[in-house]
């Protein structure tokens, strides 16, 4: 019964759980945890987790920002537009944290910032494709130039993180009542315009977008997994463990894809493999950091080694794909 008692070892959700928890009986650590998790799961199921997701989006933007800042430093910021994701990720952090405290900010600032970041990701994808084309040999040398050129799917992966913020902006805050939480203003507007709110909006607000999120999980896993594939290939798979994200990728993509058809897969395989991906990302992060320290110069060349060693945040971005999968498994399915 994963759906009822998911054990999610993830900081963001724990944090939200702890915030939401109101002790009725003498709390034991285990009870705090289990009840917190149940509360979190219920909130997710019902779409009442705007503050939590805003916070996650905001905090994860710090990682995404650090990643893109160091990657673009490697490219020397030779075009001004390379600053845009760095600036936007900073804005996303502010908007996300703000959105955790203010529903208004979540519905406005976070929504538009996320949208801009998402668009930036898509535009960046175009630039990265162009960047590969402009390397000697261009797309006639796909292997060499994808590996040595701008990371092709990184901007889209960056966009997926922004997508979280966008979703958060349409959710309901945690304290909303379970049933019909729509504001008076919205109801008045719908009444005046004689138009019901669009279905996707209702579904988002009610946490009924499992298939949608599964699709996003599939896509982002592909983006992240492809990066793992070529950058591990670049180092000739020196360590056997470098195969794990490459193997995990089709599995998780398969589970996410199947979840769009099958509610059962969404309850079983999807969370299982997603948790594994998160674990894999966590372990990967550790190994990448170790790799950074093991580079020539080690700690004495730390800034250089962080930028040019194994990318510290890449495994965490893979873990984030697992997080999307877990989130998807907790959602309700769209009404057909």
């Amino acid at each position, binding site marked *: 019964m994963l759906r009822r008692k998911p054990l999610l070892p993830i900081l963001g959700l724990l944090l939200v759980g702890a915030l939401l928890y109101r002790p009725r009986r003498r709390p034991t650590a285990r009870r705090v945890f289990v009840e917190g998790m149940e509360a979190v799961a219920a909130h997710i199921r019902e779409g009442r987790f705007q503050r939590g997701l805003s916070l996650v989006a905001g905090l994860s933007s710090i990682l995404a920002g650090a990643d893109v800042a160091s990657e673009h430093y490697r490219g020397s910021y030779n075009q001004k537009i390379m600053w845009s994701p760095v600036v936007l990720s900073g804005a996303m952090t502010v908007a996300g944290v703000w959105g955790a405290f203010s529903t208004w900010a979540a519905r406005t600032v976070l929504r538009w910032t996320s949208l801009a970041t998402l668009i930036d990701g898509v535009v960046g994808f175009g630039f990265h494709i162009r960047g590969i084309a402009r390397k*000697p*040999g261009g797309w006639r*040398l796909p*292997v*060499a130039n994808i590996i*040595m050129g701008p990371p092709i799917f990184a901007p889209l992966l960056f966009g997926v993180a922004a997508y979280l913020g966008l979703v958060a902006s349409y959710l309901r805050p945690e304290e909303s009542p379970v049933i019909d939480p729509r504001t008076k203003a919205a109801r008045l507007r719908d009444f005046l315009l004689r138009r019901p709110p669009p279905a996707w909006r209702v579904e988002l607000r009610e946490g009924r977008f499992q298939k949608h999120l599964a699709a996003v999980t599939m896509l982002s896993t592909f983006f992240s997994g492809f990066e793992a594939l070529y950058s591990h290939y*670049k*180092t*000739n798979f*020196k360590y056997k463990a470098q195969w794990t994200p490459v193997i995990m990728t089709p599995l998780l993509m398969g589970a996410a894809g199947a979840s769009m058809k099958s509610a059962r897969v969404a309850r079983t395989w999807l969370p299982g493999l997603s948790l594994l991906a998160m674990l894999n990302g966590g372990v990967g992060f550790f190994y990448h950091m170790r790799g950074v320290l093991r580079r020539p110069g080690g700690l004495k060349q730390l800034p250089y080694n962080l930028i040019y060693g194994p990318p510290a945040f890449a495994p965490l971005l893979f873990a984030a794909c697992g997080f999307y999968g877990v989130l998807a498994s907790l959602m309700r399915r769209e009404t057909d």
Partner: protein
Amino acid sequence: MESDPARLPVDAEGKPLVPRPQPGYYPKFSTLSQQAFWDAATRTVVLQRVTAPPPVRFFTAPEAEIIQRVIEHVLPQDDRVPERQIPILPFIDERLFAGRTPGYRFEDMPPDGEAYRLFLRAVDLMALEAHGAQFLRLPWHEADVLLQSVHDGKPSGAQDIWKKLPVKHFWTIMMGDCVEAYYAHPWAWDEIGFGGPAYPRAYFRLEGGAPEPWESHERHYAWDLPPGCVSGEHEAEAAHTDTPTHGETGSH
């Protein structure tokens, strides 16, 4: 030419290694197989080198015979099957024929073409003085020893000629010409595991000596000098740190 087994490098047991199409530790590695990835200008230059070495025009036929024999000693290729031996003489000849310099002439040296001719006279004279035979008639080992004395800067004879031809400078120039021809050849690149031309495609495994997907892993095997060869190992000039500056300042 056929290889004399006594002139072949040997394995761990001292048995001669059979000549191969490709010596070295990178079996099956072929830079030429990658030529589709090279730019057209480079491919033209390299293929020209492989398929159409220049004709010998500077040296006369008898001179060419002697210099060819010298080359076989100073840059031996007995470990290569005959059809995969790398031509060296044509490239030296071409430079001298065109009158190209490496960018300088030592003040105490004659021009390069003249220097080569003096050298050819010197080796013949040295052979006559020591063995009463022309250089080409010397047994392999004796010729090796004769050239060793030139390498050492203490030629064993023909002192009148060496007065006009500073021996160290000439050795540097001649050996430079030889390696310039040998290690310019794709077969030599395959032998030593060098990747060859690298544009528009270059490398992505820059660190740790890792091979590109199209390069080969190194496979070491026992390889030792032919027994009795004199052009073998030399004392490393500065294995530790307090030896004086190397005397070979002429080869900056």
